[in-house]
């Protein structure tokens, strides 16, 4: 319990650090929301500087950065993420829907990645050096080194446009049915899963290979246990730890990878929202999303640690 509390405390410090870093970075980057709102995007035109100043004052952006920071933190501890500048609505309202859409992608990607990645890793690890192992290892190497958005474009063009099996881009709200929603979510999730899948596959393979060489596995075999039982009882369970660790750490990477993949599929998730928020210098919205990302990261790490202890009581707290 003490361990968990300490870890939670550390997590909060991490989140505070991320918020502060992003706050300072955003305010250090040239360009403010008032100018963007008034001058717009491409093709935007002339505007009176007096109007920009007036809007900055209205938004409270004329105050010193430190004052804005303290005000922001003050609200944050009460659970208030503030109002989005672009949408003039609470950040929590703005990010709810896109966050949900992204979580679906991440969950689907984790499932696809876990099933396929661990499966392939187990096959390769159990028959090391075989043709199958070589093919799988080669494919995993390609998958791990190809950027997610490249895979996304490839899938969108081939499975989407050419073969027409899935929509090449777009989105249907879940309110119009779970089926159509998941149908649109499949390709982006698949694209997102590749890096995760490859990482899991490689770790699983290596881990199984290592465990298979352990003395106690040889002993178990020597005792006449069936290969399947040896695998289940002795190899798989012991090989699972690094797999779980990597999975947890990869959750953060998955969230990050959504930013570009969502662009390719025009998927209205939190990644697209973040990109738009940065382009429009919507400070509260960017910070809100960063907080969500940090929380996910911290919680994922915490869960990994707990699982680790659960699976292997020798891990010290």
């Amino acid at each position, binding site marked *: 319990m003490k361990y968990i509390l300490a870890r939670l405390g550390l997590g909060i410090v991490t989140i505070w650090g991320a918020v502060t870093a992003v706050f300072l970075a955003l305010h250090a980057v040239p360009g403010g929301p008032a100018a963007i709102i*008034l001058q717009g995007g491409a093709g935007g035109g002339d505007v009176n500087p007096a109007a920009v100043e007036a809007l900055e004052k209205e938004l409270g952006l004329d105050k010193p950065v430190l004052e804005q920071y303290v005000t922001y933190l003050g609200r944050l501890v009460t659970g208030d993420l503030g109002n989005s500048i672009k949408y003039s609505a609470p950040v929590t309202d703005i990010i709810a829907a896109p966050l949900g859409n992204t979580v679906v992608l991440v969950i689907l990607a984790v499932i696809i990645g876990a099933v396929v990645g661990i499966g392939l890793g187990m096959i390769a690890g159990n028959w090391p050096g075989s043709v199958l192992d070589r093919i799988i290892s080669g494919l995993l190497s390609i998958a791990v080194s190809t950027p997610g958005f490249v895979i996304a474009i490839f899938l969108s063009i081939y499975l989407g446009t050419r073969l027409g099996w899935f929509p090449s881009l777009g989105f249907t709200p879940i309110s119009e049915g779970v089926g159509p929603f998941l149908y649109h979510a499949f390709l982006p999730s698949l694209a997102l899963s590749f890096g995760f899948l490859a990482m899991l596959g490689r770790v699983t393979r290596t881990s199984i290979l290592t465990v298979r060489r352990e003395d106690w596995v040889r002993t178990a075999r020597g005792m006449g246990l069936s290969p399947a039982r040896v695998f289940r009882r002795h190899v798989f369970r012991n090989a699972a730890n690094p797999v779980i660790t990597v999975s947890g750490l990869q959750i953060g990477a998955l969230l990050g990878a959504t930013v570009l993949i969502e662009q390719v599929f025009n998927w209205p998730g939190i990644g697209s929202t973040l990109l738009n928020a940065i382009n429009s210098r919507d400070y509260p919205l960017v910070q809100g999303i960063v907080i969500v990302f940090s929380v996910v990261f911290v919680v994922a790490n915490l869960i990994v640690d707990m699982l680790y202890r659960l699976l292997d009581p020798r891990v010290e707290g």
Partner: protein
Amino acid sequence: MRKPIARSPQRARFSPGRAKRYAALAAAAAVVLTTGLAGCATDTGTGSSGGAEGQVLTYGLSAEPSGFKTGVDQGSANKEMLTLVRRGLLMYDGTGEVAPALASEYEVSDDGLTYTFTLRPDLKFSNDDPLTSADVKRTFEYLADENNGAADQTSFANIASIDTPDDSTVVLNLTDPQTSLPKVLAGPLSAIVPEEDVDANGVPIGSGPFMITEYNKGVSFTLEANPNYYDADSVQLDGIDVTFMADAQTRVKALLDGQVQFIDYVSASDYESLESSDGVTLARAPGLYGTLQFNLTDGPLAEPQVRQAIAYALDLDSLNQVGTLGYGTAFGGLPVPSDSEYFNEEQAHHFDRDTDKAKDLLSEAGYPDGGFSLDLLTTSQYFGFTERAQVIQSNLAEIGITVNLVTGDYANLIANGNSGNYDMLVGGPPAAINDPSSLSGAFLGGPTFVRSYGIDESLYADLLAQGAKTPDGPERVDIYNQIGEIYLEDVPFVTWGQGTVGFAYSDDVQGFEMLSGPIVYSSVYSLSNASIAG
């Protein structure tokens, strides 16, 4: 791996860990299965048709508008939406001519100082509020107030007073004649707005052919035909489903895959593939002007000869080639469209490339062989900016000027451009109408990123004011020629021509008409008469 497990002679004891693992696998299988099955069962592309019974156009819009501040030029996506949901006294027809809109007719007094507009009877906003002369008066007074940031505030500032003798008559009394006034009033930013111009959901209310009935933040607008539109019978579309698609390639793909029927802001790099694709039409036209802006306040760029030298050193054809892939129009001189009667061919070729002359001018200015370096501010966010910056860099290297590229997103360009934190900037002057009076935006109005920093406004102000009130004709042409001559000496920025703007749509879409020049985004006005075949 199932087989060996099933054959195992000894049954494994129940363990919670294993049960969880199996449960997770089962869940995974279920989801994957559901996804696959759903895929087989339903084939609904995003917004495809949106309803079998009606004519609903699906529209991939290049950006989610950053709000709808009345009169403020917030970019192309914003203007496109405004042409759909709002109306002004006048509008543009499919040829770019000023046409009646809320006002069925208007009269100009002989001295050009009084405009009398007659509103159509029983006008209403989409929220059922009546639209009367009082709304026109209030809107124009708002647009004239410089604190409100209207893009064309100076055009409205010339209105001395507004009389509203009755609900359907508006009389504008001008301080000076204003040749361009009808064109200003026809622009989407001059639309008449109700007292509460934006509703609780942050969508604009107007009296245009369509109204926004749903705003799904970050995703889409749903538009329905506005029954209160004065010409509702001529509107054939029942609605428009607008999906925000920030990525240029995504829009093209969505059009080609049939997920949307109409897209805006087509990048020149996609023209060729769209032109050769069956079933889609590409409409393109010259758009806004591009210029290399200067910070004239100090250093070598404060010397007119240095600026002239740079003008002689730039290769406009290469700039056009890389910035628009050759689809734009390359010309120098004043930023006036090449098809305008105010375009001066001779001035446009004054600075035809001549690096020897450029070097001589640098020597005259005290910089033999150049020998100085300049920061060139650009952006990587939109196509054509960095590409042009690289050409400028190599052009100026030939006359001994070292150019350092400073790049970032568009917000960065705006911020540094507004504060004069640059030596040179890839940009362009603002222009809302196809009229030479819009040149004032290039020279007057204080520092912003759309104008060279530290420009000597006094060189141009009087002539620009004179041009604005002179009726079209030879006398007016002469005034703008004079301005052009001053420009060629002063060179506060170097013009490289007009960019290109493209819309693309499915062949089923009929009635869209492309305009050109600064009013190119007003092309979307024509969707009020568009229809979908088949």
